[in-house]
């Protein structure tokens, strides 16, 4: 009876300990989906199995080290094999592993069953930002790191969500099964939100599938998990889960904004207008490689400031931005930027940092190029 009590107290203190560890951010988060709770459960079971085996094995080891010290006059025994014991300690781990494999298989099958999703979101990894496309809703946007450069360089106080904040989070409804389709436009990225227990590689040329059903509204933060180049640390994932109604409202607003942003393809734009808009696009999309001052980081990312080849050949410049350069790090932007943004950024590049070509590229020209 006393032994039972001691055992119970031990278990209680141990579970208390693991709860405290979780609260302090020392353990895997339990998360906010059924799958994430299953995964947490598997994690804790295998962890405690390891702890128990460890206590037994290391216990015997340290007992032996202490008890059979030569300095205490220990004499070596002569046994060196024992078939029964060996069979026993080979079979026991095997049984533990089989017992472990069964629930793991069940959870894995669940994670792989993305059927009957109510909402599909295409997630595309770019160097170094995520792009979301709500399939069938015609809503697309980039999600960029929103932490100011000064905080990274240490000239400003770091905020609470340092490096885990974005300009536009992925907004998802709670209680609905959302299928995430992952791909990449350049190198391999990996989309990871610990609270959802979703981590899936975004591989160029492949579309991977994952799914989630979030239980509670809230903001869940993660980041790219696969080394994807110099700004790998600076492409967080933020998911904002909201109730269905709020989500519907958000969806409607986004549609209106998108329509407004894409409008104006047909009208004649002035140089100043395009340069102003282009500067913003450049800052959020192009500057991570070609730098804010247009100097690039040669030889991988060429300088744009003073780039004579670019200034001399307008058609080539447009082609590079719209269609990318095969076999290089330059991606095609026709699928991810609208014609107005494309025209604006090309115009900006031709008229910034002392590139005084005076060229104006009209959105209509780009539109004709993409969609003849």
């Amino acid at each position, binding site marked *: 009876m006393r032994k039972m009590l001691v055992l119970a107290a031990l278990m209680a203190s141990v579970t208390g300990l693991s709860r405290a560890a979780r609260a302090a951010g020392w353990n895997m988060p339990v998360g906010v989906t059924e799958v994430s709770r299953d995964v947490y459960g598997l994690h804790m079971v295998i962890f405690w199995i390891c702890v128990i085996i460890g206590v037994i094995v290391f216990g015997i080891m340290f007992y032996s080290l202490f008890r059979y010290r030569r300095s205490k006059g220990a004499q070596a025994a002569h046994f060196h*094999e024992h*078939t029964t014991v*060996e*069979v026993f300690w*080979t079979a026991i781990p095997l049984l533990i592993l089989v017992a472990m494999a069964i629930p793991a*298989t069940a959870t894995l*099958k669940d994670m792989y069953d993305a059927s009957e999703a109510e909402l599909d979101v295409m997630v595309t990894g770019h160097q170094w930002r995520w792009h979301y496309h709500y399939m069938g809703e015609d809503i697309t946007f980039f999600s960029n790191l929103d932490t100011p450069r000064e905080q990274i360089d240490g000239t400003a106080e770091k905020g609470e969500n340092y490096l885990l904040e974005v300009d536009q989070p992925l907004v998802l409804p709670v209680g609905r099964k959302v299928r995430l389709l992952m791909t990449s436009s350049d190198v391999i990225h990996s989309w990871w939100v610990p609270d959802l227990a979703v981590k899936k590689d975004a591989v160029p040329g492949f579309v991977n599938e994952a799914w989630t059903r979030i239980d509670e509204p809230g903001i869940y933060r993660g980041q790219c998990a696969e080394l994807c180049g110099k700004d790998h640390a600076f492409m967080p994932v933020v998911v904002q889960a909201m109730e269905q109604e709020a989500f519907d409202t958000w969806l409607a607003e986004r549609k209106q904004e998108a329509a407004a942003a894409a409008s104006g393809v047909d009208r004649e734009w002035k140089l100043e207008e395009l340069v102003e808009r282009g500067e913003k696009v450049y800052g959020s999309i192009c500057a991570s490689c070609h730098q804010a001052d247009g100097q690039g980081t040669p030889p991988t990312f060429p300088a744009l400031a003073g780039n004579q080849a670019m200034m001399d050949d307008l058609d080539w410049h447009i082609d590079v931005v719209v269609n990318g350069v095969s076999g290089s790090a330059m991606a095609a932007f026709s699928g991810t930027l609208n014609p107005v943004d494309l025209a604006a950024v090309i115009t900006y590049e031709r008229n910034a940092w002392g590139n005084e070509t005076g060229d104006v590229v009209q959105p209509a020209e780009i539109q004709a190029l993409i969609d003849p």
Partner: protein
Amino acid sequence: MWEVVKSVLSAFFGVQREQRRRRDFEQGKPGTFIVVGIVLAMLMVIVVMAIAIMAAG
């Protein structure tokens, strides 16, 4: 032959009686053990694969 299979299987498991090991090493030919080992290793792959396919069912 069955003795060889038994010996290889116990090698897979990692435990073998000393007399049997001695007998294998003194009387057996390495070639048979290697061939049986390869065949059984492939068989093991097939069995694990079958279990995986069934589990994924």
